[in-house]
């Protein structure tokens, strides 16, 4: 047997965007050799979410619908994935590189005694071997890697790098029964710390503020621009360490690694550790009053100027567009 099995993640009843991206990439790669693409979905009462997967290219959905899987646990979900692997016998197992996927992929890999490739940004198929590109040294270098002939090849895909596109089609649902997983580490509670705000790790547009905004109160200006473009608010470490904004907003080596379609950095110098978190963004915009700020080296567009003079008219111009 061959093919690609994709672990898909849901939030409430929706399949997450990063998982649809992973299914779509699996479909594109599998088209060459004509491999089957399957998905595995775990949870309690999640059968409804399975139907949309066919449209993205999954021909089969392995469904682990089990009251033990109501909340995520690496041990429980690994049992579900391994069961699907036994049935599908895939050449590769894909995960979206979300908090859940990055946690689960290595646990599954170790359970089936193979290695894993994390945070992959490009994939090609050479025979049965997936050749992956992944940033290393915080994006200062790119490595071309594979799983040294071991199969199945366990791979997590960086969110927002691969396109999700519908191809039309429908999936057959296969129930995975008799899982009875041993779960020791149990999620007792999911606290919403986002306050309804979009998380930078998931946002398609991010506007980040750094020390150049002068004080915590001026995040209001950053937020205004973010709201105007429908984006999330990010930050440099300097302002997180200063207590101007919470760590969950931090982008960079010790914060979140993001790849939005648009990243606007205002009053951020562009230290190597900040670039580590955002240099794979599709379009980068810098607003900085220092023409020599390193952020301009990675910027696609930039304005040399005082952010307090540039951002308000930007917000006005953007509002005019809609």
């Amino acid at each position: 047997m061959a093919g690609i099995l994709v672990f898909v993640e849901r939030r409430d009843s929706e399949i997450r965007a990063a998982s649809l991206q992973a299914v779509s990439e699996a479909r594109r790669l599998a088209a060459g050799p004509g491999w089957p693409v399957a998905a595995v979905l775990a949870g309690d009462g999640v059968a409804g979410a399975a139907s949309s997967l066919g449209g993205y290219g999954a021909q089969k959905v392995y469904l682990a619908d089990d009251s033990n899987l109501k909340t995520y646990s690496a041990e429980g979900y690994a049992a579900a994935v391994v069961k699907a692997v036994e049935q599908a016998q895939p050449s590769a197992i894909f995960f979206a590189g979300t908090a859940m996927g990055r946690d689960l992929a290595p646990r599954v890999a170790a359970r089936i005694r193979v290695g894993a490739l994390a945070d992959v940004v490009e994939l090609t198929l050479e025979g049965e071997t997936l050749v992956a590109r992944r940033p290393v040294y915080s994006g200062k270098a790119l490595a071309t890697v594979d799983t040294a002939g071991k199969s199945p090849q366990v791979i997590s895909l960086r969110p927002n790098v691969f396109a999700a596109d519908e191809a039309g089609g429908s999936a057959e649902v296969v129930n995975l029964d008799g899982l009875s997983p041993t779960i020791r580490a149990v999620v007792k509670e999911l606290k919403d710390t986002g306050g309804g705000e979009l998380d930078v790790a998931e946002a398609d547009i991010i506007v980040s503020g750094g020390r150049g905004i002068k004080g915590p109160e001026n995040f209001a200006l950053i937020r205004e621009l973010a709201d105007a473009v429908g984006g999330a608010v990010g930050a440099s470490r300097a302002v997180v360490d200063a207590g101007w904004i919470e760590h969950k907003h931090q982008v960079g080596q010790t914060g979140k690694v993001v790849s939005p379609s648009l990243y606007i950095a205002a009053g951020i110098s562009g230290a190597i550790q900040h670039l580590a978190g955002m240099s794979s963004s599709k379009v980068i915009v810098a607003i900085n009053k220092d023409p020599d700020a390193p952020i301009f080296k990675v910027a696609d567009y930039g304005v040399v100027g005082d952010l307090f003079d540039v951002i308000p008219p930007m917000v006005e111009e953007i509002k005019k567009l809609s």
Partner: protein
Amino acid sequence: MNCIVCVASVPDTATVIKIGADGTSIDETSIKWIISPYDEYALEEALQLTEAKGGEVTVVTFGPAHAEATLRECLARGAHQAVHIVNGATSLGDSFTIAKVLAAAIKDRPHDLILCGFKGVGTDNGQVGQMLAELLDRPHVANVTQLEVGEGSLTAGREVEGGQEVVESPLPALVTCQKGLNEPRYAALKGIMAAKRKPVEKVEVASLGVEEGADPFYAVRAVALPPAKEAGTIIQGEDDPAGAAAQLVKLLREGAKAI
């Protein structure tokens, strides 16, 4: 409360990366090696736990000769024991092999809690902890920013997108530590002096039943610098910020189609 902390020795985060002559590794001449930043949170947490509850902190690393310096740093901060599994070659992190080696070295050492970093800075994998937990048949909680350890169990807060999962687990368990968990201490002079007298136990990989390089799970075909980016369109906005703003919005709308 015995803690085992896995620490990796990595290039200083400010290092300018150059590609090695073989094209599959980085040029390691003149690299300054440091304890991987997330492993500092792991060590600090273990030190605080044993200070409060008694027991010992053992630090373990699998790495080449220079990795001993990382262990000395951990001893200077207060770790009780250090184990250096000696590895001749450096690599970009074959996570599963590293996990197998660590599992073999740890399994017979008493431990209530194993602590790792959330990811090794450089390999940027974030895999070894989870793999190690599976190989040792321990529950794990990854990406932990809050931790309370009680009698025989722990409660950990783990960061996920837009929220925090509160996880309970029996001990022994493994956690991977994220920024926010604590503020790592610096080594005091007294600690540095004391560390010089503490032994570092050396373990040969072969004695753990693993033959180095014989059965890899990760192959690095090439390492390259990221393609140089074309120079961007930079607008001088000092004199006419409003005009610059309008021009930028137009470029983003019509050129990049990003808004």
